[in-house]
C-alpha cells in the first residue's frame, strides 16, 4: 500500500463509508486506495495581497506554502489532487505565477478545483494552469467534494472546506490553546485550512461527531 511511503506514525487512518482516509498533520487527507490527495483553503496570494495594502505579513509565508505543498506531494505521491476551494485569496498577484510554475512541475498529476467564494480569478487563468474546474461539486463515490459543506448526503458523503475548523483545548491553570482539526459529522466532513496565513473558527461538535486534532507531527482523535 502507498500508505507505507508516508510517515505513517503521523497520519490517522479513519474509516468512512468503507473507505480508509489518512488524515495528515499537514492539514490534508490522503485517500490511498485511489491515490487522491485532498487539500482545502490554500488561500495562496493572501500574504502578498495584504502586503500590497500596507499590511506587513512576512513574505516568507508565501514561500513556505509551496514548501509545505512540496513536502506533501513527496510524501504521498498522488495521481490526482482535489482542491476544495479558496485556492487563491483575492485578486491576482505574483503568487499566482509561483503557483503556476509549481503546478508545471507536477505535469502528470490531475488537479481538480471545486470553486470557493474566494476564487474570483478569470476562468482562463485557471485553465492556463491546467486545473479542472467544478462549479459546485465533484463526485467520486462514495464521496462528494464541495467548498461549502452540503446539508444533505444524497450525492455521497461530503468532504468540504470553507469553515477552517479548530477547537479550544483547555489546559491547566485556565490556559487554553486553539488547534486546527478535521471535523467529521454523520453527513460529511470539514477539512482544516491548508494555508499558513489563515485564521480558524472554533467549532462546537455534537456528540455524534468525530474530531481529529492536528498536533505538531501527528493527528489525534479527540
Amino acid at each position, binding site marked *: 500500500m502507498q500508505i507505507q511511503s508516508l510517515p505513517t506514525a503521523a497520519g490517522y487512518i479513519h474509516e468512512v463509508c468503507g473507505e480508509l482516509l489518512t488524515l495528515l498533520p499537514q492539514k490534508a487527507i490522503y485517500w490511498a486506495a485511489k491515490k487522491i490527495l485532498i487539500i482545502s483553503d490554500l488561500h495562496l496570494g493572501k500574504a502578498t495581497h495584504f502586503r500590497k495594502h500596507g499590511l506587513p505579513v512576512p513574505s*516568507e509565508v508565501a514561500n513556505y506554502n509551496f514548501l509545505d505543498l512540496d513536502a506533501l506531494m513527496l510524501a504521498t505521491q498522488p495521481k490526482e489532487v482535489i482542491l476544495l476551494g479558496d485556492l487563491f485569496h483575492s485578486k491576482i498577484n505574483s503568487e499566482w505565477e509561483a503557483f503556476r510554475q509549481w503546478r508545471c512541475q507536477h505535469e502528470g498529476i490531475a488537479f481538480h478545483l471545486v470553486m470557493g467564494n474566494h476564487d474570483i480569478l478569470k476562468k482562463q487563468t485557471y485553465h492556463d494552469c491546467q486545473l479542472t474546474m467544478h462549479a459546485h461539486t465533484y463526485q467520486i463515490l462514495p464521496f462528494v467534494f464541495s467548498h461549502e459543506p452540503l446539508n444533505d448526503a444524497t450525492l455521497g458523503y461530503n468532504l468540504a472546506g470553507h469553515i477552517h475548523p479548530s477547537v479550544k483545548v483547555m489546559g491547566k*491553570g485556565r*490556559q487554553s490553546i486553539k488547534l486546527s482539526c478535521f471535523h467529521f459529522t454523520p453527513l460529511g466532513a470539514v477539512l482544516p485550512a491548508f494555508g499558513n496565513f489563515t485564521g480558524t473558527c472554533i467549532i462546537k461538535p455534537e456528540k455524534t461527531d468525530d474530531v481529529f486534532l492536528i498536533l505538531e507531527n501527528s493527528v489525534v482523535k479527540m
Partner: protein
Amino acid sequence: MKPTSSKGEQAVINWYKQKKWKPFAFQNEVMQAYLLGKSGLLNAPTGSGKTYALWLPILAEFLNKNKVSTKSELQILWITPLRALAHDIQLAMQTACDEMGIAWQVACRTGDTSASQKQKQKTKPPQALVTTPESLQLLLAQRGYKEYLGTVKTIVIDEWHELLGSKRGVQVELAISRMKTLQPFLRVWGISATIGNMLQAKQVLLGSRFDEEDSVMIIADIEKKIEIETVIPEAIDRFPWAGHLGISLLPQIIDIIESGKTTLVFTNTRSQTEIWYQNILLMAPQLAGAIAMHHGSLDIEIRSWVEQALHEGILKAVVCTSTLDLGVDFRPVDIVIQIGGPKGIARFLQRAGRSGHRPGEVSKVFFVPTNTLELVEAAAMKEAVKLKIIESKPPLDLSLDVLVQYVVTLAISEGFHAPEIYEEVIQTYNYRNLSAAHWEWVLRFITLGGDSLQSYEEYKKVEIIDGLYKVQSRRVAMLHRLSIGTIIADPALRVKYMSGKNIGTVEESFITNLKPGDVFWFAGKNLEYVKVKDLTVLVKNTTKRKGIVPRWAGGRMPLSSQLSQMIRNKLSDAANGNSKEVELIALSDLFELQKKWSAIPNPNQLLIEKIVSREGYHIFFYPFEGRLVHQVMAAMVALRISRIEPNTFSIAMNDYGFELLSDKPIAIEDALEQDLFSIINYEADIRAGINQAEMARRKFRELAIISGLVFQGYPGKYVSNKHLQSSSQLFFDVFEKYDNQNLLYLQSFEEVLTQQLEFARLTEAIHRIAQQEIILRSPPRFTPFAFPIMADRLRESLSTESIEARLERIKMQLEKLADKS
C-alpha cells in the same frame, strides 16, 4: 515679595479679587516661573485650582505684550487624558478669558467633535485648543500641520500622572518632540497628582532638549486632610473569604449613605459594581431612583446622564469603578466609600479626594473590607497615608509599536526626512536608547513590510521619494487615520434592547455561555437574553430574578509593592503584640489562632505552611507581594520542586500568598534544603515556568492594533476590506514561524515580562526572600491565612451555588476545631 507686578499680573490679581478667591502660594510660583519663560511640572491635586494655576499666567503674559492682537492662530494646546473632561476645561478657560476681557477663543477637539467644527478650527484656528493625545496625533496627520502647530507657544499636559507609563503618554512625548522643532521656544508644562517618581515624571515630559535651568518643579503646598474610617464588622471571621463579608456590612453602608449628601461607592471591578448596586437596592428600596451606577462597560449615554445628575446633586449615591477616579469635581459629593482593598495608595488617595475637594475641606472616606484579612490592608493604608508613601509610575521604554504608528502618521501628512525625525525621537525619554539599528528596522518595516528584501516590490505603504518618506495611497492614509483614534478595548459585544436602545457592552466569552431565555444582571437591570445578531446582544427586560452577573477581564488590580511592604510591617506588629490600630485589634482572635496553629512572620521571615487534607497535599507560601508576583513565583517554585521529584501541581494565589496542591506528597523539605528560592538561574526558571508565549500572544493584540497590523474597525464607519481581514493572533503565529526576529513580536514578550509580570519587582522579591529566614510549619488544618487562598481556588473551579454552601461547611468545621484547640 516682588516690588511691582506687571499689567498681566495685576489683571489676574483683580480677577481673583472679584471672585473673592485668594491665590495659593503655588499659583503665584507658577506665575513667576511662567512669565520668566520656563517650562515645568506642577504637582497639584485635583480640585486645587490647578487649571487656573496655569491658565492665568498664560493670559497674564498675553496681556503684558504691548500689542493686544488676537490673530487667528493657535497659541496654546491643552492636552487632557479624558475627552469627557475636555469640554469642562474649555468652559473654565473661556470664561476666564471673557471675564478678563481677552477676545480669545478656546475650542475643544476630541473624538466627539464634528467634522464641520474641525474644519472651522482648521481654517480659522482658535487661540487655545483643548484636546486629547489621540486627537493631537490626528493633528499631526493633517496636511499643513507644521504651520498650524508651529505657532503654538505653550503646550500643557493635564493629569500627566495618568498618561505617564501608558502608550498614550508616549504619543504625547513624540508630539512634543516634533513641536519643539517647529517652535524652538516651545514651553511645556505638565500638571500631575503626587506620584512616587515626580522628578522622573518631569524628565519624561520634557525630554532631553530642555535644560535644567529652563524648567522648574512646583509643588502645591496644599495639605489635603483625609479622614479614613474603617467599617469594622461586629463579628470577625477567623476564616475569611473574599466577597463574603462585604455584603453583611450593608446596613452600616446604607447608614453612611443616608448620613451624607452624595456618596461615591467605589468598587474594584465592574462585576462588583453590578452586585453592590443590586444589593444596596434590595436592602434599601427607598433609595430607588436616588442611586445609580457607573462603569466602563455602560453605554456612554447612561454614563453622561449619571455624571450630569452628580453635578446637579440629585443623586444620593453612585456605585462605580475607576471610571470616576478622575475628572471634574462633583461638588455635591461629600463621602467616599471604598469597598474591598484598593490595592494601591495612589489610587486610594485619588478616590478619597473625590469628596470634600474644595480647598480646606476634609476628604472623608470609609473603607469596607470584603474579607477580614483586608483589615490589615486598611491599617497598612492608613500608615502609608500618614507617612506620605506613594507608588511610582514607571515610564515605558522603547515602545516600537507607537513609533511605527507615529512615523506613518508623519508620512501621511507632509512626509518626513528620516535623519531629522531620528534626532528628535532620541531626545524623548522613551526612545533615548533607540539604536540606529532599531530605527533602520522601523524604516524598513514601514517601507518594505519587514526585514526581508525578498518580494518587497509588491509591498505598498510608505514610499521614499527623494529621501522623503511619504504615503501615497489614500486608502492607507484613511485606514491609518481611523486607527489612531481607536482605543484598544477588549473585543466586546454591544448590548441592546429589542427596541434599539443601547445599554452597554459585555465580553464575547460571557455571552457564548448563555442560552436564549437566560437572565443576566447588567446596568442594574434584569435582562433576558434573546439572541445575538451582527455583534449585538439583543435583550429584553424581565421580572425573573436570580440572574448571573457578567465578568469582565482585567478587573483585578494587584497589590502595589509599597502597600505590600506596609502590610508586612503591620503583620509583624501583630506578631509581636504591638498592634495599636483598631483594625488590627479587631483581628486579634484571628492572629491568635494563626499563631497557635502556625505563625505570623515578621519582615525578615518567610512563612510556609504544609497541610494535608482530603483534597491532597498543600503547601502555602506567604511572601505578601501581590497576586501577579505570586503567580510567577508559584510557577517557578513548582518547576524547581518537580525537578527534585517529578510532580504536578494546581496553583492558587491571592495578594498575600500562594498555594501548591498535589495528589502526592510534596518534597518541600528537600527543596528548601536545595535552596528553593535561590537567585541563581531564577530568570531562566521563570521563563520556563510560565507560558510566556501565550501571555505574549494576548499582549500582542495591543501592539498589532497600535502599529497598524490589524484594523480594529471603527464604530459607525464601515470600511470595505473583505479580503484584508485578519487577527492579531494570525500575525503573531506567522511572525513566530517565519519572522521571529520581528521587533514588534519581541516587544510583546518584553512587555509581558516588564509590565505584566512586574519583573523588576519580582527580582526584588526573590532577592529579599533569599535573605529571609524560612519558617516551615505543619498546621493541623487550614489556617486563617490559608483559608482565603483555598477558597479562591475552589470558587474558580466550581459553580457558585454549590461552592458557597461548601465553603460555609468547611468554615464551620474549622471554627469548631479552632474553638476546641
